[in-house]
């Protein structure tokens, strides 16, 4: 992991002092709420329906065991004993008192953490995949570059008041587990035949009410130019991005209106003027940061561990878990383990209690190298586990309710907190999540369905990434009533695509039956080993539509299929 030096520490400490002063000026009335708003947002503080929510940054999803203990402490001492892991690999605490925020930030700063720029119209947390540095199919570890970009973008004075939020993701694996194509800037890091690090830079992606996948703006950018190129993109965006309408203010709208080629030319002109400057990255800096991500002291293990093999043969439940919840590791004899935060209807996706966090930190120290990851699917990951330890780890995870063997399956739902918490949501995403998890709790059936992503957003702002779920569910408000619109065919990764609406929307109680009909259609049509998304791509939407709408799902009145249009009139927008 990257280790803070004196400068990093001084910066987060000074920042706490600054925000403590700002909070006291807000409490005294010296700062109006309007003036305070962007200041608190840039420190991760939202005002939700019932309380303040604090979003803490987990840079590129990497945490030490000690840092996880700090998050556990915040959950137990300042919140209602739990935290919620987000699709940006961050964690948010939902029941926070404004007066206590400076103390929480102090606690974070004392452990080399912060909440800087987890919100606001600025560059947000840089994300990557949870298996960065350990994945078997990765070209190289993207985290040193993610850390370098994190530092560059942190309190960068020119870019703190952009037209809108700005999200950067980086991946160095061809199959892309970081959803890079739905980001404002998506980076693919690779090496050429001489071993030089290069980037493909994709610009103008984003979900929200106008979902767009980003497009290639610069191919084979040498690594030392990544900061100047990003600077050029942001300067063009800061100057020309729309500010008259916040729904049209993301860079995707600018890129779309100019066309990616014209936009890229504009960036190129700007970049030519700054690329050969002091802002060019140095090998020394890359090495300094990369030193923090040197592989830990792995043991030399055999490819085949007899005890592990024996448990696999003896305990089919263990085998099921290994199949879905472990990932191939680049080092022989190791695996990465995914801890499912979606045990079913008794716990909302991404929610983890303080006590669970303490326990996970202990397991990371005992079985791994004291490192924990957060995945953008809202799960936790222990990246370096010896295969010989998998069985005993699994037993412990099961006791902790973090061992549900459903990673990558239907019930590994990505969901936003929805109207139960969020002031912007116009529907509650958690009850519909619960209804689905209740209906489909047969683990053998889920495994038979295979890889299938189900993403749920409580409003058009799409925090639950419904556009890129194989099945996407979007909550829409119709005259004060909640309806849920279903899309299929969305995907993240190498073959990213946006889902298509199947037809009229449903009431919450109709959703499980609708999902069931979609699944039955898939089971009827699938060819050997064909995934849900593969079948949708091959056959198209028609058989699904026919099955779902042939007979009425429920007795309730149907909603017309143009609810997207109605949704446009909603005013809520995430900040």
């Amino acid at each position, binding site marked *: 992991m990257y280790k803070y*030096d*004196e*400068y990093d520490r*001084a*910066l987060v400490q*000074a*920042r706490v*002092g*600054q925000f403590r*002063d*700002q909070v006291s000026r807000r409490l005294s009335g*010296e700062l109006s709420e309007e*003036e305070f708003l*962007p*200041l608190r947002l840039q420190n991760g503080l939202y005002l939700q329906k019932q309380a303040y929510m604090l979003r803490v940054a987990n840079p590129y999803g990497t945490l030490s065991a000690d840092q996880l203990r700090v998050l556990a402490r915040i959950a137990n001492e300042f919140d209602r004993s739990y935290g919620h892991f987000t699709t940006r690999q961050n964690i948010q605490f939902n029941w926070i008192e404004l007066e206590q925020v400076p103390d929480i930030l102090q606690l974070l700063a004392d452990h080399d953490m912060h909440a800087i720029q987890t919100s606001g*119209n600025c560059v947000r947390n840089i994300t990557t995949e949870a298996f960065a540095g350990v994945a078997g199919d990765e070209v190289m570890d993207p985290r040193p570059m993610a850390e*370098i970009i994190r*530092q*560059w*973008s*942190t*309190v*960068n*004075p*020119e*870019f*703190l*008041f*952009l037209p809108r939020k700005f999200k950067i993701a980086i991946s160095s694996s061809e199959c892309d587990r970081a959803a890079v194509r739905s980001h404002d800037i998506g980076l693919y890091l690779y090496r050429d035949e001489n071993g030089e690090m290069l980037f493909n830079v994709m610009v103008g992606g984003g979900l929200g009410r106008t979902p767009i996948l980003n497009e290639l703006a610069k191919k084979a950018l040498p690594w030392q130019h990544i*900061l100047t190129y990003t*600077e050029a993109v942001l*300067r063009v965006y*800061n*100057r020309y991005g729309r*500010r008259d309408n916040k729904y049209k203010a993301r860079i995707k709208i600018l890129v779309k209106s100019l066309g990616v080629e014209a936009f890229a030319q504009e960036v190129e002109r700007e970049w030519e*003027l700054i690329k050969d*400057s*002091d*802002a060019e*990255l*140095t090998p*020394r*800096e890359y090495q*300094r940061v990369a030193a923090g991500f040197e592989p830990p002291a792995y043991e030399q293990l055999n490819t085949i561990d007899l005890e592990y093999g024996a448990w696999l043969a003896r305990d089919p439940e263990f085998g099921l878990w290994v199949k879905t919840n472990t990932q191939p590791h680049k080092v022989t004899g190791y695996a990465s383990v995914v801890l499912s935060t979606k045990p079913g209807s008794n716990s909302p996706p991404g929610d983890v209690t303080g006590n669970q966090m303490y326990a996970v930190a202990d397991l990371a120290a005992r079985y791994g190298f004291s490192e924990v990851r957060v995945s953008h699917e809202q799960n936790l990951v222990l990246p370096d586990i010896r295969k010989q330890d998998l069985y005993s780890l699994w037993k412990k995870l099961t006791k902790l309710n973090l061992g549900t063997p459903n990673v990558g399956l239907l019930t590994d739902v990505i969901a936003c907190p929805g109207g139960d918490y969020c002031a912007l949501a116009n529907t509650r995403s958690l009850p519909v999540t619960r209804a689905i998890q209740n209906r489909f709790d047969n683990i053998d059936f889920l495994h038979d369905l295979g890889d299938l992503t189900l993403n749920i957003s409580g409003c058009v702002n799409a925090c639950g990434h419904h556009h890129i779920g194989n099945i996407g569910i979007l909550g829409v408000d119709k005259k004060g009533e909640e309806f849920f619109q279903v899309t299929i065919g969305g995907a993240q990764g190498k073959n990213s695509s946006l889902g298509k609406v199947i037809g009229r929307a449903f009431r919450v109680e109709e959703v499980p039956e609708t999902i069931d009909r979609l699944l039955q259609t898939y089971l009827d049509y699938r060819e050997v080993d064909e995934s849900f998304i593969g079948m949708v791509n091959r056959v198209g939407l028609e058989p699904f539509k026919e099955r779902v709408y042939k007979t009425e799902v429920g007795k309730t009145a149907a909603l017309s299929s143009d609810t997207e249009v109605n949704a446009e009139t909603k005013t809520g927008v995430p900040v």
Partner: protein
Amino acid sequence: MKNTIGTVKGHASVLHDDPWSLMDDEALDKSDDQNSRYQILSLESLLALEETGESQQGQYGVILHPDDDPELLLPWLDSLTIIALQFPRFSDGRAYSQAYLLRGRYGYKNDLRAVGDVLRDQLAAMRHCGFTSFAVREDKPLTDALKGLNGFDMIYARSVTHPEPLFRRRHLRL
């Protein structure tokens, strides 16, 4: 202009008796002396004066709109004593990039003033981007605003005031 802070080599102090008056129609400050010899003109007025040759006499400054391209000022950069950039709302960050371009790219050396919704908590970022004076919103006391220039201003990236990014200085432990 009233309620204004100036800086000398980054050190801030209140500007008593600042002589400048904003003459731009939209940003017109009624309290300023419209007969002042020190006028900050709109780009259009500056261009009109240029045609009559008057701009060579007296002291002139110019105010840009947030969507004006600072490159338009290239012919006058040496003769302008002051350039004002606008923050229509403090959350509108276009002037930060304009400031960077004027200073970092076009080499403008004289006073660069922030006008409009100019508030304490943004002053340090403005200074980083090359602003040297600040017409603070008039309902805000300057004694408070000055604190904004004496607090947190650490960054990693380069800025106009720190042209070398931190990573080029880090090993020196500055």
